[in-house]
């Protein structure tokens, strides 16, 4: 579920006193939310269930999947060989006369409702001289409308026990605005949601205060190794333009004006650019009427899809970017390449390959770098598929003295993945895992909604999730290896290492030409 907090730097936070076996979320290890795969999808109570065995799969599981590791499979625990196949309940999809797409799903387990809006083109529309404009605009929606002050908005949301937020994540092709709360308060929630989306005022005094807070946020992020790695990775992968950015700059924060925000809002916040999804304890017909009441007056034609010219054409040869962070006791390593679009047919092969290599604690990277070698708390790989070719990457935070050993194991696992066919049992396990995890997704409504919004947003077929299990089952050894050759490509791997330069620069030179940058991204001699 996406963050429903308007301001991630404020409110009740978890403390560091609770320790977990494996990282709670991949976010601490991987600089992004989960990829758009079936692990994100869910469905609901009244789902039709069928017990089937994946036609093409046998679950032998007898071979050791990671010969290097001391990991051991005794195969004595009772496992049901059947995959519990589930069908995701389909939403009602409608288009209002003003071009707004609606997606409505009923879920009656608890008396709540969640609204999510995707408004394109998000951060991809940032002007090159004002990085973060989409993000500033989204953040400022709550800070005053033509009808309500910032305080009134906050007071109303908090009094309903509601969450109301907006963000334009870097690298995402849409802005997300969401509101969630108790279903009895749906009219008030929609009133608030429509007010901040349709009529934000960007009051100059609030903009000035926001800029002060944003500067502090940026300074804090510059102390975070994961952020530094993410920023360098995008820079290396995309060169310039909005895709190469991971945050605003001091300059853009200083220069942005209320007029810039108004212009961005007027140009892009249009019903034709927007999907509004709702899930909760309501009747579909009633909810549609309620949404129409608050959003029918919204106007503005849809924009043509944004063009994404980047300077980089062919992938660049392997390079290591060392982000110097003096005093670091770990090196945060990213190795990755340019990925795919969400609609590419390679999606399934990449999904299964990634599952085998780094898709969880059962995958090769974790079992090798953590369970076998004890170099890290966790090592994972992940991919991001968007309207543009996203990325594939592996990442791990390792203690400084084993930077060399960790690089060696990553290179070894990358080479093995791309040069050796995956054993049948590992392929079976990966496909089994992806399909079986659908059942768990059935009880988290916001994520189910997100799944259907993905279908709608990327123009995937309406029966996409019905076909998904078969598509995954159809991924064979050749498809996995093709994906590995293309994406786990050591000749074009872009490495980012965030750590203490004095301790790791010499070591890293063994793995490719090293460029050193400081926390500000400036090249060091």
């Amino acid at each position, binding site marked *: 579920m996406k963050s429903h907090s308007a301001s991630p730097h*404020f409110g*009740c936070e978890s*403390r*560091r*006193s609770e*320790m*977990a*076996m494996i990282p709670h979320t991949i976010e601490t290890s991987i600089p992004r939310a989960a990829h758009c795969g079936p692990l994100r999808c869910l*469905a*609901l*109570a009244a*789902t039709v269930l069928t017990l089937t065995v994946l036609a093409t799969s046998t679950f032998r599981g007898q071979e050791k*999947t990671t010969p290097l590791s*001391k*990991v*051991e499979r*005794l195969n004595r*625990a009772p*496992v*049901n060989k059947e995959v*519990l196949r*589930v069908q995701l309940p389909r939403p009602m999809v409608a288009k209002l006369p003003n071009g707004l797409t609606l997606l409505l799903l009923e879920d009656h*387990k*608890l*008396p*709540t409702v969640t609204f999510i809006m995707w408004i394109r083109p998000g951060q991809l529309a940032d002007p090159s001289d004002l990085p973060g404009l989409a993000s500033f605009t989204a953040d400022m929606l709550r800070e005053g409308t033509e009808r309500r002050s910032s305080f009134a908005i*906050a*007071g109303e949301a*908090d009094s309903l*026990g509601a969450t109301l937020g907006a963000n334009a994540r870097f690298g995402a092709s849409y802005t997300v605005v969401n509101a969630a*709360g*108790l279903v*009895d308060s749906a009219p008030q929630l929609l009133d608030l949601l429509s007010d901040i989306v349709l009529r934000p005022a960007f009051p100059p005094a609030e903009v000035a*205060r926001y800029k*002060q807070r944003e500067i*502090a*946020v940026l*300074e804090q992020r*510059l*102390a*975070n190794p994961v952020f530094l790695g993410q920023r360098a990775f995008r820079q290396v992968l995309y060169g310039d333009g909005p895709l190469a950015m991971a945050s605003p700059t001091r300059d853009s924060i200083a220069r942005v004006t209320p007029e810039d925000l108004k212009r961005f809002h007027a140009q892009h916040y249009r019903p034709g650019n927007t999907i509004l999804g709702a899930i909760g304890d309501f009747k579909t017909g009633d909810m549609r009427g309620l949404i129409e009441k608050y959003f029918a007056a919204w106007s503005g034609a849809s924009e043509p899809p944004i063009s994404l010219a980047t300077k980089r054409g062919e992938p660049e040869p392997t390079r290591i970017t060392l982000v110097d962070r*003096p*005093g*670091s006791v*770990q090196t945060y390593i990213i190795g990755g390449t340019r990925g795919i679009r969400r609609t590419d047919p390679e999606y399934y092969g990449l999904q299964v390959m990634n599952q085998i290599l780094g898709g969880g*604690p*059962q995958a090769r990277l974790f079992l090798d770098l953590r*369970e076998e*070698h*004890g170099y890290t*708390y966790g090592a994972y790989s992940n991919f991001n598929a968007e309207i543009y070719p996203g990325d594939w990457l592996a990442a791990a*935070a390792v203690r400084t003295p084993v930077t060399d050993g960790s690089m060696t194991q990553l290179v070894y696992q990358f080479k093995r993945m791309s040069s050796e066919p995956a054993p049948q049992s590992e392929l079976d396990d990966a496909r089994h895992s992806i399909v*079986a*995890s*659908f*059942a768990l997704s*059935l*009880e*988290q409504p916001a994520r189910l909604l997100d799944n259907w919004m993905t279908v709608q947003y990327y123009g995937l077929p309406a029966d996409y999730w019905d076909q998904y299990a078969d598509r995954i089952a159809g991924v064979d050894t050749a498809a996995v290896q093709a994906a590995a050759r293309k994406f786990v490509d050591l000749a074009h791997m872009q490495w980012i290492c965030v750590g203490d330069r*004095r301790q790791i620069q010499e070591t890293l030179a063994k793995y490719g030409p090293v460029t050193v940058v400081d926390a500000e991204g400036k090249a060091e001699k």
Partner: protein
Amino acid sequence: MKFAKIWLSISIASVLVLFLSAGSGSADNGVKLPKLDLRGTRLDNGLRVILVPDHSAPVYAIDVSYNVGSRNELPGHTGFAHLFEHMMLEGSANVGKGEHFILVLNNGGNMNGTTSEDRTIYFEELPKNQLDLGLYLEADRMRSLNVTQANLDNQRNAVEEERRQGVDNQPYGRAELDLDSLSYDNFAYKHSTIGSMADLEAASVTDVADFFHTYYAPNNAVLTLVGDFDPDEVMVKVRKYFASVPAQSAPPKVDLREEPHYGERRESIFDPLARLPRLDIAYHVPPGNTAENYAMQELAIALAQGQSSRLYQQLVKEKELASNISIVTDARMGTGQMYIRATPRPGVSLADLEKGVDDEIAAVAKDGITAEELAKAKMQLLRRFIDRRRTVLGTAQLLGEYAVKFDDPELINTTPDKENAVTIDQVKRAAKAYLLRDQRSVVTTEPAQAAPNAAREAP
């Protein structure tokens, strides 16, 4: 001061008891939550079992909560409860090293384990057709964990990296550890759950084996299952897998009382990884599941949850002293804390920020909060509770926590009523009683130039 009863002192042998509660999770805001029917029993070996059928999705969750946390650790053995948690993945008589991950994830499930000051939990969520798998995995490791030097060395490394990733390589990591060690005199809560590097290095196989026998016994655990199943069938399976795990003698009890302090405690840190200063303040609060703790929870929400909250409006928006501020309030078995954390706006001194916070605290200790603020806090708490209860896993974890920490799983149904019962007078009295300057501890952090090879791993 009231402390949680140790549930194992009650012995009900193998009787399926249906807990029924009068409350139905309602609040006077009119919101009715579906009441959960808990089926509770205790096996002859002392294992407490809680079953809750929930047919809303074809899945189930299993949670094993052990009544042990870092509070049980002794000097020289810090970080042990959590290090041990990692050992629970290293294999047992019938499950290979790492096979736990493989079996759960490859069958569509999810799993983890976590350790806090008070308890250690293990959990899996799986499709409903893998009911035996979850039970088998948890029973096998409760019965027959493999404790070897190689496994210990390996997980020690993983835990040390967890500490580096979460604490030593993060700005303000030291501030968070130092605050607890400053504000507690009782060792149980004074030391960190992650532990010191020196103690982690010194842990031996014998220590691990002793710990296992003392704390990882059925009579020191609660097994909770929530999901799409028939409870009678599950009970048969629970007996099949767990009934023969032998009981152990009861672990030693820990005194969690914190004696009153005499004066405010302060520490300042120069942090080479920080780029901005930070203010961390902790006030002691009463144990969880007491009227006073509920009052302090609601006070904290009124102060800092949501952008209409007092501290946000006053310090972030109006006076522009802070760029962010947050409050977390414990609900521990013993004396907990209310943690206030704030970052000054660039150009504002820590002293000015602290003065701003102090003024707000003084106002609330004198006058309490308004009826409107309290109503708002209650709605926010209810929302938070509903979100935690939404999934079978969230429900199972809450039940395990309520059972281990407060000996009252029925809190799953009564918590909203208890939260709703808090009055404006209770909040005012609690604020006056606990927001005491001479009982608080303050850690200030300022950025420091990184020293070459900065030794940040000191215990």
